[in-house]
C-alpha cells in the first residue's frame, strides 16, 4: 500500500509482469490503443467497472454492501472473496450474479444463481468461505490476533466461472477490512491469582457491565467473542481452563477447579471499571457446563447466563477430565464415528451419560438464562440438555427465567455472525490426527449465528443494563 520514491516507470514494469490484464469484453468494444509518451490514443478505453463495498472497514458483526456499476447490461459476473487466516491459510468463496438492465448489481437485493451460496444473501461471500483447494485439511477459522483485521479481497470476474477451475480475468477488486475490536477497546492479558485470561475493556470511564466468557474442550484462549462484547460496551473476560501453557499441570487435562472459576468471577467484581452486580457468564460447549456450574457456585451471583450447545453436567468429575484420545479414555465408549472416521462426540453429553453428581442444580438459578441450540449439533446433545433445563426450571416455577433459541440446520460452533463455518475440523493432531464432526450446514448455520448474536446482545442489554 505504501511505497516511497519509486518512479512510475518502475511500477509500470512491475505491473506488466504481474498483471495479465485485458480489456473487458474484448469482443464488444474496440480496444483503445495507448501509446506511452505520446498524446495520441484512439477510441474510448473502457474503464474497469466500479465495484464497491460500503463500508470498507467494519466490525465482523456488521454488514457491508457489495455493489457494482458500469458493467454491460444483463451480463453474467462472478464475485469472489478471498482472505488469509492468521495462520496463512487461504479461505475463499464465490457467487454468480447477473447485472440488471442498467449494468449494475447489488448483493443486498440480488440473487446468487450459483457458487458458494444461492439466493439473496448480502453477507454470503463472508459466511460461505471455505479453505481454498490445496490448503491444509481440517481447518477451522478462528482469529488469533484480535487487534488486527481480516483483509478480504473482493473481486469481480467475467462470466459465471469457478475461480478454482477457470479463474478468467479479474476486472475489478475492492478490499474490505473486518475487525474484531472497535477503536479504543483496551486489551489486557491477565495472569494474576493463578488466573489465565484476557480482559477487554470498552473505552470510557465506566463502570461497565461485564461478561465472563468460556469456550470448549479445544482449549487455548479464544479472544474474539470477548473483544466483540467490549466493542459493544461490555467488559469481557475470556478465561482459559485447559490446554494453555500458562495453566498448571498437563495441557491435556483440566487442572483447575471450583475455586478457579469463582476467582475469575470475583476478579470481575473487584475491577474498578466493572459494575459488580452486572456480570453475566457465557459459554460454548463444555464452557456451557462451566457457565451453569460457576453460576450456581456459592457466593457467585451472575446477572445472567448464556449457554450455547453444551451440557448441564460433565461426563466425569471436572478435575482431571482428559481431553485427548488415550485409548483407555472411558469417554470413548460414548463416541461414535461417521463413515470417514470423524468422531461424533454427541452422546458424551447426553444427560443420561453425565456424571449424576456433576449435573448443575438448575433449580437454584436466580437469574435469566438463555440457552442456544444448534439442532444439527453433532458434538453435543444440545436438544436433550435444553429439554432438561426447560423441564427442571418449569418444575421449580422458574420458566420465566428461561429463553431457548433453537436453530434447524445449525451445528455446534455457533460463533459471531458472518464467520465461515466448518462442518468438521481437526480435534487433535497428536498423538494421532483425528477429525471431529461439528455439524451444521452453511446457510442455516449462518442464519443462526446472525440471529443468535442479535438476540444474545439484546438479552445482555436487558439483563445487564436495566
Amino acid at each position, binding site marked *: *500500500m*505504501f*511505497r*516511497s*520514491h*519509486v*518512479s*512510475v*516507470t518502475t*511500477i*509500470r514494469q512491475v*505491473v506488466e509482469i504481474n498483471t495479465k*490484464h485485458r480489456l473487458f469484453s474484448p469482443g464488444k468494444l474496440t480496444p*483503445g490503443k*495507448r501509446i*506511452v509518451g505520446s*498524446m495520441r490514443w484512439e477510441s*474510448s*478505453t*473502457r*474503464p*474497469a467497472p*466500479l*465495484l*464497491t463495498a460500503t*463500508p*470498507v*472497514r*467494519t*466490525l465482523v458483526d*456488521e454488514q457491508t454492501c457489495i455493489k457494482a*456499476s*458500469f458493467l454491460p447490461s444483463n451480463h453474467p459476473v462472478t464475485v469472489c472473496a478471498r482472505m488469509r487466516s492468521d495462520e496463512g491459510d487461504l479461505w475463499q468463496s464465490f457467487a454468480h450474479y447477473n447485472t440488471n438492465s442498467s449494468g449494475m448489481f447489488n448483493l443486498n437485493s440480488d440473487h446468487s444463481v450459483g457458487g458458494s451460496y444461492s439466493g439473496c444473501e448480502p453477507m454470503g461471500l463472508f459466511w460461505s468461505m471455505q479453505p481454498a483447494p490445496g490448503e491444509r485439511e481440517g481447518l477451522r477459522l478462528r482469529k488469533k490476533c484480535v487487534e488486527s483485521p481480516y*483483509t478480504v*479481497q473482493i*473481486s469481480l470476474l467475467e462470466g459465471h466461472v469457478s475461480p478454482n477451475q477457470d479463474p478468467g480475468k*479479474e476486472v475489478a*477488486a*475492492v*478490499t474490505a*477490512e473486518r*475487525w474484531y475490536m*472497535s*477503536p*479504543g477497546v483496551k486489551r489486557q492479558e491477565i495472569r494474576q491469582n493463578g488466573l489465565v485470561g484476557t480482559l477487554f475493556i470498552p*473505552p*470510557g*470511564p*465506566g*463502570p*461497565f457491565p461485564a461478561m465472563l466468557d468460556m469456550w470448549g474442550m479445544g482449549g487455548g484462549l479464544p479472544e474474539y467473542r470477548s473483544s466483540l462484547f467490549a*466493542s459493544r*460496551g461490555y467488559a469481557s473476560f475470556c478465561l482459559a481452563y485447559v490446554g494453555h501453557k500458562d495453566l498448571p499441570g498437563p495441557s491435556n487435562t483440566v487442572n483447575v477447579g471450583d475455586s478457579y472459576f469463582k476467582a475469575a468471577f470475583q476478579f470481575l467484581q473487584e475491577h474498578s471499571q466493572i*459494575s*459488580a*452486580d*452486572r456480570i453475566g457468564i457465557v459459554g460454548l460447549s463444555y464452557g456451557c457446563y462451566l457457565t451453569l456450574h460457576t453460576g450456581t457456585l456459592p457466593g457467585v451471583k451472575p*446477572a445472567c447466563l448464556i449457554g450455547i450447545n453444551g451440557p448441564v453436567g460433565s461426563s466425569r468429575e471436572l478435575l482431571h477430565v482428559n481431553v485427548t484420545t488415550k485409548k483407555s479414555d472411558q469417554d470413548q465408549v460414548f463416541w461414535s464415528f461417521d463413515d470417514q472416521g470423524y468422531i461424533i462426540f454427541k452422546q458424551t453429553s447426553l444427560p443420561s451419560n453425565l456424571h449424576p453428581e456433576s449435573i448443575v442444580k438448575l433449580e437454584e438459578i436466580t437469574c435469566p438464562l438463555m440457552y442456544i441450540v444448534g439442532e444439527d449439533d453433532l458434538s453435543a446433545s444440545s436438544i436433550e440438555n435444553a429439554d432438561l433445563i426447560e423441564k427442571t426450571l418449569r418444575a421449580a416455577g422458574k420458566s420465566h427465567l428461561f429463553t431457548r433459541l433453537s436453530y434447524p440446520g445449525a451445528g455446534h460452533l455457533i460463533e459471531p455472525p458472518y464467520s465461515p463455518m466448518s462442518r468438521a475440523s481437526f480435534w487433535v493432531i497428536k498423538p494421532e490426527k483425528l477429525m471431529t464432526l461439528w455439524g451444521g450446514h452453511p446457510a442455516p448455520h449462518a442464519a443462526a449465528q446472525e440471529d443468535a448474536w442479535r438476540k444474545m446482545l439484546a438479552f445482555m442489554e436487558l439483563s445487564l*443494563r*436495566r
Partner: protein
Amino acid sequence: MSQAVPPVLSVQPSRALVDEKFSVQVENLPPGCPVTVRSLYQSEDKDFWEAYGHYVSDHRGTVSVSEDVSLGGTYTGKEQMGLIWSMRPAPGSREGLRLRKRDMCTPMLVTISVYRGHEDFRDQTALASALVERWHMAPGVQRIEVRERGVQGTLFVPPGPGPFPALLDLWGGGGGLQEYRAALLASRGFAALALEYLKADDSKPNSPGDKYFETAFEIIRAHPQVAPDRVGIIGLCFGTLVALSLAAEYPMIKPRCIVCLSNVHHKSRKNTVTEFPEEVPERFKTVGAMENVLVWRDMGLAVLKMQHPKIPVGNIDCPMLLINGTDDQNWPTVEVASDIIKMMREAGKESLVTRVDYPGAGHLIEPPFSPLFRATNFMLSGTRKKVMMLWGGKTKPHADAQEDSWRRILSFLQLHLYGDPSPKAKL
C-alpha cells in the same frame, strides 16, 4: 440492582471514510436529563479541536444526535455530523489554524463523549465516551510518491486491476502537497495525482512552467492502471486557474472533464498569487477587523473590472462543473463563474457548464464534514510575509455546501469519467 446504570455512548460506524456519516447515540440516561455531547480531536500539529451540542434526553433516557435537536453549542438543530463539521480549535489554542491531514496511512482519531449539563460541562468527567476513526484512504488503495521528470506529487490508485479513470488534483495558492482529496478520490474509484506545483514557502516566485503540467498529465496517462482518455482535472482556487488554462490553452492535454472549486480565471504571468496585489491599487486590499487580515475579494472585483487578461475559456471543449460560495471573501468567485459562463455562451458552449453557487459558503470548499476555516494563517509566497487570510463562509451553510458539492462532484465524475454520456448531457 444497587448501582446506577451508567450511560452508554455508541457511535456507528466506529471506522469510516471522512465523507461518510456516523450516528451517535447515548442511552441509559435519566429521562429529561440535560447533557452535552462533545467531540475532541488532537491534530498532527498537536492542536486540540472540539465541537459540542447541548441535548436533553427523552422519556426513555436516550439522546440520538441524528434524530434530536441540539439546543446550543458549536452547532444547533438536528445535525447528524455537527460534531465534526462544527469543530474549532479548543479554547486557548493558537490563532488562525487550519486542519489538513498529512499522513494518509493513519486515520483521524476522534473521541466522542457525553457530559452532564450544558454550562460548565468541561469541568466534569465524561459520563461515557467512544473512539471513532475517520480515514481518507480505503484499504487496498496504493499510495505512490511521484518524483519523475521534475514532477512532484503523490499518485493514489484504487485497488484492483483497472484501468481507472483519473484526475489531476490541484490545490491553491497556499502551495505545498496536499494529499487528502486525492486519497479520498482513489477510495471512490478514481486514480488521482495530487500535484505539488507551488512551494509552500519559497522566497522566490514559483515558475512551474508550461511543461510541468503537461508532463504531469503524461505521467498519469502512462500509468498502466489508468485509462488514458479518461483523465480529468479537479482544482480549487489557483488550481482552478491551472485547470482552465490546461483545458483551454494546451491542445495536447484535453482533459475529459474539469471540476473547478472557487473559481479564478485571471491569468497569472509569473504563476504566483502575489502579482495581483502588486498590480492592484492599495485601496482594494482591505484590512478587516483583525490586524493584518487580508480580504482579497474586492481586489478580485477590481481585477475583473480592470480587464486583466483572462484564460480564453471559450476554447474549452469538455464538461465543466463550477462550484463556488457566495460568502467567498478571498476572491469574487461567483462573479468569476458568471464571467466564465458568459465567455462560454459567446463561444456557443454554455451547455458544457454546470454551475452551483452555495449561499453562505466561503472559499475553502473541502471534502465533507471538514470544519470551516473562516480565516487562517497564510504565508504570501514571494515575500515570506505571514498574514491572516479571510476565506469567508458561515459554519452551517459552508458545511452543507461541502456535503452537497462532494456528492455532485462524485456524480459528475462518474458520469463523465466512468460513463459515456452524449456531448449535450448535463448533470
